């Protein structure tokens, strides 16, 4: 029996162990609940914070984007205004040179008027005068050859047809030798037509 007795304690202890574990788990349901609540609370707060920050981020991104767009728009408007003023100025300068009585003047006089215009308006690279049929009468250029009454026909060129129909015509900007931007401008003023570069520096 003693042997049994001797052997019982471990058995008892093996019983005690789970019972002591059961005794230890007495506050367990409350702790777990607390942890659950804490986790739930943290999760809720976390989600709320993330959503809030995401919304914040989204709105500030939108605002920032709009502000940037506004700034870009303003810059583009300002540049467009400057280009418009620049083109208007050139149009006026050509207008002054080619006033109504001017066409009746001798060719040499007109030529020197053109040369003077080139001096006053550095942005103009070339001026071509066409007659009512679109034939070239006079060309004064900073780079190419000056020609008198070459007779070359521009009758179907938009600079002639569009300018005849609407008074003034501006070509799209193109690149000379793929480098500097240029633009051709057609103007009806006693049958004139002017080619000029676009405002590169603006």
């Amino acid at each position, binding site marked *: 029996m003693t042997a049994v007795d001797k052997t019982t304690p471990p058995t008892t202890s093996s019983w005690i162990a789970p019972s002591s574990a059961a005794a230890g788990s007495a506050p367990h349901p409350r702790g777990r609940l607390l942890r659950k609540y804490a986790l739930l609370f943290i999760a809720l707060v976390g989600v709320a914070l993330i959503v809030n920050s995401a919304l914040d981020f989204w709105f500030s991104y939108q605002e920032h984007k709009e502000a940037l767009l506004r700034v870009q728009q303003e810059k583009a408007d300002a540049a467009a205004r400057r280009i418009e003023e620049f083109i208007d100025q050139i149009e006026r300068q050509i207008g002054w040179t080619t006033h109504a009585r001017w066409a009746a003047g001798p060719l*040499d006089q007109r030529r*020197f008027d053109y*040369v*003077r215009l*080139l*001096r006053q308006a*550095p*942005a103009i*690279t070339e001026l071509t005068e066409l007659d009512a049929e679109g034939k070239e009468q006079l060309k004064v*250029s*900073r*780079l*190419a*050859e*000056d020609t008198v009454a070459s007779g070359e026909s521009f009758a179907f060129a938009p600079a002639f047809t569009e300018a005849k129909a609407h008074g003034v015509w501006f070509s799209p900007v193109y*690149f*000379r*030798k*793929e*480098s*500097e931007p240029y633009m051709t401008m057609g103007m009806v003023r006693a049958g004139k037509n002017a080619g000029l*570069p676009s405002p*590169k520096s603006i």
Partner: protein
Amino acid sequence: MKYIGVFLILALCAGTPVFAQDATNLPLVGVLRINTPDTIEPMATQFRTALAALGRVDGRTIRLEYRLAEGHVERFSELAQALVAENARVIVALGDPAVRAAQQATRSIPIVALADDLVASGLISSLARPGGNITGVSILATELDAKKLEILKQIVPGARRFGVLSDPANTVPARMRAIADRARKLGIELQTADVRGAGDVAPAFASFRTGGAEAIDILASPLLNALRQELGRLLLDYRLPAICQFREAVEVGCLASYGVRLSDALAMTAALTDKMLKGGQPGDTPAEQPTRFELVINQRVARSIGIEISPAILDGADEVIE
């Protein structure tokens, strides 16, 4: 407080050698030119000023060094190789022979070229995409040399025989063809004389006298620009009206000049140099062309060689030197 004074003195003492060491480590911008040391102005100052305006101050943020071939194109190769050996950050090359030498010396260091016609000379494939390790400023010499002949004919309408002073190292066949075409249209005869160095100038003028040239078109070339003092003196001696590339030549005896402003071209070259120093890719950086051209006439020269210039021409000039 007394420690602050001691600290300041120590800082000053320590700062001086550090600064001196930095100056030698500044990025090197090497400029290849045909000139001799006494003819590098006013271009040298204009280029230095243009770079300084962009924050690239010689001796403070960059080391700007001129390597001069002194009239001998064959020296460019050695000068370019020396710049490569010194690990130059950018090579600025003026004129076709300088650009070619730089291209042969390096395929990696960015080259900023300032030349008469970069595309016609075959130095770059196109202005929009130069390709390789080169970009630069092309000053439209092909068009302008022919235009100069036309303007000279307007200045001296009675002249029939025109001399053309050319630097073969810079004048590609396309340019000579453009000039010959224009001469045909203007109904004038041309007599060409080549200048490869200072020694060729006097014989060229002698040949013009023998040939009966009445006016001279001095073609665009860094060499002929460098020799402008000598050319101006001979033009006055021979009483010949001439048209040159830049205003600077008009100040020393050339009757007129027509073309781009040197200061504009140098400002554009400086801007491209700045881009290259910032790490720009030369092959993808479009080469540029000036858009402003000026006609300058020297009335003093006109009077001293007995030429009367019509008021219409003077009226069209951007500047008349009285």
